């Protein structure tokens, strides 16, 4: 049964960040503007602001990740929060403790915020509905469903280089089926008014009725990249590179790997993005990844500012 958007307060402020779907346009813009103020913090001698002083932020990673966990940790520390990293995969869950029991125990340690990554779609929603008022939940990736801070940092990056979303064409390429990054990106782009969002990949990696999310589907990457301003490449998990979804990484690269020839179909000033970690020679040619159109490293830098913005906003700052 549909109830009120669980990530917003009654007066439409950010309470949790669970997905980019259903976030009002104004709120996304506010997150991006808040991130603007935090970008420069990283360049200072003392890389800290005191907004979250005394707050306890729990990094709850039920699925392994070094990169995302680290960027959240850095973001929280730059806001002066106390950060506790928990790699649950190796502790409670393996002892049979239920997800909500783990949450209750940590909440009893006076947690103020949970950053959650979990292999099940909807895990963050479940936690957000369970925790008591005053504890914020930020989804750091749930199954195939959402990775909203990645979606938002992608928006920040696009806005940084392209200024506006109103005349943009954006292509998202690769394993759309299993990608939470793609889903979060699509919702954010359509909300911000991007008129042309394309997904490109073989039919085995395009989810059913994805057009209903407001995108067009292309199987031919050459045609799909025609005239685009932004190319977002997705990571292909190694276990999916050969099997019923794809014959081989080699053939995937041939059809859907980004190389100079395919990129030439995009606008000359098109930017190339990737959420990382990259598989060079599978999704993307090294020359492109390191080339002048690549904004993959700035994405990482902006990611910290965007995560700081979200953490500040869910704690009422």
């Amino acid at each position, binding site marked *: 049964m549909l109830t009120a958007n669980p990530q917003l307060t009654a007066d439409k402020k950010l309470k949790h960040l669970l997905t980019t779907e259903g976030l009002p346009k104004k709120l996304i813009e506010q997150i991006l503007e808040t991130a603007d103020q935090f970008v420069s913090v990283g360049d200072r001698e003392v890389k800290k602001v005191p907004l979250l002083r005394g707050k306890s932020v729990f990094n709850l990673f039920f699925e392994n990740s070094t990169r995302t966990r680290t960027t959240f940790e850095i973001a929280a520390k730059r806001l002066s929060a106390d950060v506790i990293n928990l790699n649950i995969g190796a502790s409670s869950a393996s002892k049979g403790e239920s997800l909500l029991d783990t949450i209750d125990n940590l909440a009893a340690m006076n947690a103020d915020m949970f950053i959650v990554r979990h292999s099940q779609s*909807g895990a963050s929603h479940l936690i957000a509905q369970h925790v008591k008022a005053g504890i914020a939940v930020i989804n750091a990736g749930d199954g195939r469903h959402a990775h909203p801070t990645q979606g938002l940092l992608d928006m920040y990056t696009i806005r940084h280089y392209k200024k506006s979303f109103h005349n943009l064409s954006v292509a998202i390429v690769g394993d759309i089926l299993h990608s939470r990054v793609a*889903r979060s990106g699509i919702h954010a782009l359509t909300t911000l008014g991007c008129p042309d969002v394309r997904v490109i990949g073989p039919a085995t990696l395009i989810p*059913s009725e994805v057009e209903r999310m407001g995108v067009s589907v292309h199987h031919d990457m050459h045609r799909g990249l025609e005239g685009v301003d932004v190319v977002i490449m997705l990571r292909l998990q190694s276990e999916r590179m050969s099997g019923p979804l794809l014959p081989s990484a080699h053939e995937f690269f041939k059809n859907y790997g980004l190389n100079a020839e395919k990129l030439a179909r995009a606008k000359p000033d098109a930017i190339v993005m990737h959420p990382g970690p990259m598989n060079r020679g599978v999704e993307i040619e090294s020359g492109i990844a390191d080339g002048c159109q690549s904004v993959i490293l700035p994405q990482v830098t902006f990611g910290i500012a965007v995560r700081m913005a979200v953490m500040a906003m869910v704690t009422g700052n």
Partner: protein
Amino acid sequence: MKIEIKNGRLIDPATNRNENASLYIADGVVVGMGGEPGMSDGSEASNGEALRNFTPDKVIDASGKIVCPGLVDLCARLREPGFEYRATLESEMRAAVAGGVTSLVCPPDTDPALDEPGLVEMLKRRATMANLARVYPLGALTLGLKGEKLAEMTELHEAGCVGFFQADHPIRDTMVLYRALQYAATFGYTVWLRPQEAYLAADGIAHDGEVSTRLGLAGIPVSAETVAIATITTLMRETGAKVHLARISSAAGVELVRLAKSAGLPLSCDVGIHHLLLTDRDIGYFDSQYRFTPPLRSPTDRDALSRAVIDGTIDAICSDHTPHDDDAKHVPFGEAQAGATALETLLSLTLKWADNQQVPLPLALKKITSDPARVVDLKAGQFLLGAAADVCIFNPQSFWVIAAKTLMSQGKNTPYLGRELQGKVTHTLVNGQLVFPS
């Protein structure tokens, strides 16, 4: 003991009886229907002669209520043996009669599975001792429901099994399915199958479509159902087996059933009540109460299922009663157990469906009384002179709130928790004995 149920509206869908009349019961059996005892209206059923000197020991005043045959449910999990932490025979039989259900078919997906006669006899004995609803077990089609070796069907049949079912464990090896159908056909047993192709459904969680894509839930395509139905009906033609398809979920599945039936195959099928009311849209923000097996599908599918119930392509509506403990649903959607407790809501939800679809009340009641009885060949679901008096009396106007407190079932897992439904059972009789309220 003589009972008169009077002043109610007597609806017996099997005989098209729908009138303000009394129901007369003596020594556990129906002895008459009609106006005043002795005032025969000329029909055989009114049984004027026998009622001339009828003096009831007990009168049930059914003013403003509907008096219909006790409900027959084609799928109610009682959770014994093996899953007593989810529910017990006692709790679920109390739930059944509280919902007006007097006969229920239980699937073999217990632990251990109902694959040997001793288990079936024990279940039947415990059910008889409880002295509430009648229990008709389905035996496991294959040992341990593993889809490898056939269960002893004749032994199980003699122990009281009314058919053989694979429950939610599809047979992967088509040759095993072929042999199972051949063997069952030898003895005229009905094989029950939930049409789901094992590989297409393998890791799926929700209907493959817009909602599963948006929520990032692995999809179960409609083809998982249609491929299975096509396989089953093809093998039916070759083996002559009688098959009941349990829990149809899609428009395309309905179409295949319609074709098979019009070709004269001995095929029947049912649908779970929730699939007539809900769709995958209702999952909302990952509400695990809406996880079902088969999955809730699209609005188009739901509407096709409704039409198929009305035109008779789908023979019966069942509760697909699946009680769980709370923990089974307080986990991420993909880890949640499927199904809902539904014995007590079957009638109210069927009335809600009938109201939504403007289906006449007698037709709706037929789908939960005489039509399911016909599927299992039971002498139940209708008022027959001289036959056991299994009766459901309900107030079609009264509202009740579905809540943990108001449910007798040990399972409180239902999408309707906290909601108000119309139509409440006030009395249930089995063998002419009042079993609800107890």
